[in-house]
């Protein structure tokens, strides 16, 4: 498609401090509910989740790395994201204009096929009615609908911000929005500046320059510091991670011991 955008993100794991600001910025922006006990992370909804990786070594050679994980917005091959392909309700869709995998809550009937299909655990199910303590419903963001019990939800790349930016541009007689007009809540909040967001198709955007996607290899990065999660599944994700540590880049592919010789990640 001509002029199609492909929004994506580059997360520099050398910069990420694992502070969790992105998670909370996302919760506040996207009306994510919370419960008295959120410690079972399989049941707790968080569109953005910071994982802790380690190099599997013993003290004192042990190292850690923090990895923030939003929805990877897989393009697959020609828009065949793992979740989109399995949804019987057409409640999730790959938008060829933006590259965003959407989630349409009123269409979702809660079969959770998409959760099973997603290799990244980005999709979460509303097991309970979303309830806020008395008075706290005042801080709900009217640009994002509250999800009801029984539906699946996930990161939307803060699409409401894209719509607002487009509306604003339209009002001002423009057809294109600038890079800084549309930024996700997590990108904006990151105090370490680890997250960069923009249009991967636009060579002037920082994400494009950092990710250096190779169209001939389904977006595989030409940057030797970059990797994508579980890249070998062919999900063709739009979140690129940067790390100067080899073990981190390998961990992104959830490798088995001895699986890689020297050919991979060169």
């Amino acid at each position, binding site marked *: 498609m001509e002029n199609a955008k492909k929004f994506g993100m580059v997360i520099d794991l050398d910069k990420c401090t694992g502070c969790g600001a992105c998670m909370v910025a996302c919760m506040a922006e996207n009306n994510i509910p919370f419960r008295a006990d959120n410690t079972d992370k399989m049941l707790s909804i968080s569109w953005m989740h910071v994982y802790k990786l380690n190099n599997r070594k013993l003290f004192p050679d*042990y190292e850690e790395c923090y990895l923030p994980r939003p929805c990877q917005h897989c393009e697959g091959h020609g828009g065949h994201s793992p979740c989109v392909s399995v949804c019987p309700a057409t409640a999730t869709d790959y938008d060829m204009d933006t590259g965003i995998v959407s989630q349409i809550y009123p269409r979702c009937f809660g079969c959770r096929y998409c959760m099973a299909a997603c290799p990244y655990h980005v999709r979460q199910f509303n097991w309970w009615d979303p309830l806020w303590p008395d008075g706290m419903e005042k*801080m709900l963001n009217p640009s994002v609908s509250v999800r009801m019990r029984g539906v699946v939800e996930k990161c939307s790349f803060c699409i409401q911000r894209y719509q607002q930016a487009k509306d604003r541009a339209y009002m001002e007689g423009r057809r294109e929005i600038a890079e800084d007009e549309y930024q996700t809540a997590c990108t904006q909040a990151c105090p370490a500046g680890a997250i960069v967001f923009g249009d991967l198709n636009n060579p002037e955007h920082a994400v494009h320059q950092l990710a250096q996607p190779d169209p001939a290899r389904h977006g595989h990065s030409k940057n030797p510091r970059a990797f994508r999660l579980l890249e070998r599944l062919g999900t063709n994700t739009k979140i690129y991670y940067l790390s100067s540590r080899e073990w981190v880049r390998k961990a992104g592919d959830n490798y088995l011991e001895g699986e890689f010789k020297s050919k991979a990640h060169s």
Partner: protein
Amino acid sequence: MKVDRRSFLSFILGGAAGTALSPLPWKLTDDFSIWSQNWPWTPVPQKGEISYVNSACTLCPGGCGISVKKVDERVIKIEGLKGHPVNDGGLCILGLAGAQLLYGATRIQTPIKKVNGRWQKLSWKEAITELAARLKELRAKGSAHTVACVAGSDRGTVPELFSRFLAVYGSPNFFRTPSIWDSYELALYLTQGTRSMAGFDIENADFILSFGSGLIEGWGSPGYMFRAKGLLRKNGGRMDQIESRLSKTAAKSDHWIAINPGTEGALALGLAYVIIKEGLYNQNFIDQYTTGFSDRKKRVIDGFPPEIVSKMTGISTGTIVALAKDFARARKPLAICGQGQGHLPGNLQEFLAVHTLNALVGNINQPGGVWAVPEPDYIDWPELEMDGVASEGLQQTRIDGAGSYRYPNARYLLHRLPQVVNASDESPVQVLFVVDANPVYSLQDTASVKKAFEKIPFVVSFSSYMNETTALADLVLPNHVFLERYEDVPVAYGFPKPIIGLARPAIEPLYNTRYVGDVVIQLAKELGHAIGAAFPWADYATCLEETLSDNWDTLVEEGYVVDAEFNGTDLADAFETDSAKFEFNNNEIRTLAGYNPVKAEGDEASYPLLLVPYDTMRLASGYVGSPPFLVKALEDTILTGSQVLVEVNPATAKQLGLSEGKTANLTTPKGAARVKVHLSNGIMPGVVAIPRGLGHTAYDKFLAGKGVNYNQLSSPVEDPASGHDAAWGIRAKLSRA
């Protein structure tokens, strides 16, 4: 028609098949789910006009700029303020969740007092009259000095109003809650002669050597430190972290050097030994701007050769020598200290040792170095007119002994207050004000602090929330929360430039709360005479505007005033010591007890392990309790259900017969708790680490009753050099439950 078995079954089966083939059950299921999804308690956010209010965050002394997003008169989100000199758009996790503190369930909505153990509402007029009557009575009895105040800070208009009130009323007992800044201020004062704040030009340094400071875990101004650490990296700078546990700061450093906890000062002295012995120090700086170098040299060379330091710290001599050389040879090396977020003042000699390292490499008041940032001086109120009672009260020694013969250098020793109160027959504090502080939760040895607070006859809390201290109070005069009030922000801890911020109300107060400043002014006027006369302002708003007069317009417009040109005072004028130089040694330093690692309380035989607290950005451990979003974002390796996980090295766990996720009993000389075990190779064998900020007994179901408060298991240890609380951990035992 005859109904036989056959026709009955045909009817049932046929009916079932027919219904199943019709759309009816599917339509009903769908309708039912839609109906149930629209039950009225699922809220629908109301639309409205979107607006932003630029303000300053006052949840910690970080001084970050915030942009508060509103929809009509509702606050929906807090974002970092772009272009702000401290945080430039970034914001910490607590600031981002700040709106939950505005709408939180444990807010106190009106003045209340405790009558026979139950809370009773009263009007502001009644509350102030009642408190004034009590204060009048005490003053008439000649007990003015038994009124005390615990505040989160001693800078800015609100703390200054309190200390002014106490002074003119006749009490010297104003307390600031303890932190590493007590030690930093003292180290700067002793060596440089200035009453100033330590600022760190991290972004322009090229080698940060951190002795356990949680640079990206809330040490200093989090907003600035996150940004500065990123810039350090971008500029190709290196950072080494010395700590017994792989904190997030250690994980994000170039090298993590594990050290026996509590011996950081010894390492600093050992590094100084190598730097001096090898002649790697900045000769020019030492010659021109310092005195007492030879004394210092002798002390270091005699006492801290690498072999001895290696034994104390557990770090090999090779590492010590290499580290010292790398540090001294860097272009802009900067050493920093103060454990974690800096909740405890620590060992003064350790701070002096680390500060001395910066002096040896000549990186004081230099780009990329440690700067003595002048105290804010905008508070210039009329001289106090003291009456006889006030003068007499101020002659009394402070309850904590700070400034006395025994503790000549300390200004505030809040950790001694519970000890003194508990040791007296009658409480030496009759009325205690608590403002912007939660000492019952945040001071060590919770049991003893609680006992003391129960013994103090009248505790007045100005908290907006029902926290642990407020629960033990007798009168609560709730302040507006930070999004509802004006307040000056006089400092951003650790930020290298002088800056004043202004917090502004984003919305009208939700409840019947009142500015603390207004309460002090009204209370003074109620007491009348000299006390009333000391507060010439009609209200706090007038006081604030007049005080900030020169800067008021800029503050209202921009939200901050910064001295951007400040680059550290010129070395020729920087030192206000007798010699006008940096003093490695002088009469005051000579009288201090020498460096010795502070020992953890408890005997090694019964308590073979060391328990150390650690800080995480995902838990607020200051006077603000964590809002629900923070607890939600907490890792499941820290909290599971309502049980906290402690970190243990797998080798240690194996010896104790413990494995991942097992419940264990954690015992210290001060208390016991049930915890779960989390195995981690990121911690030294023999050390157990527990997060700070859990174990609240107050607040709502999103925070209360989760985990254990470390302070309940620990107790203060007095620093022989300063009198401050220098405890960094406590001996402990971990056994299978």
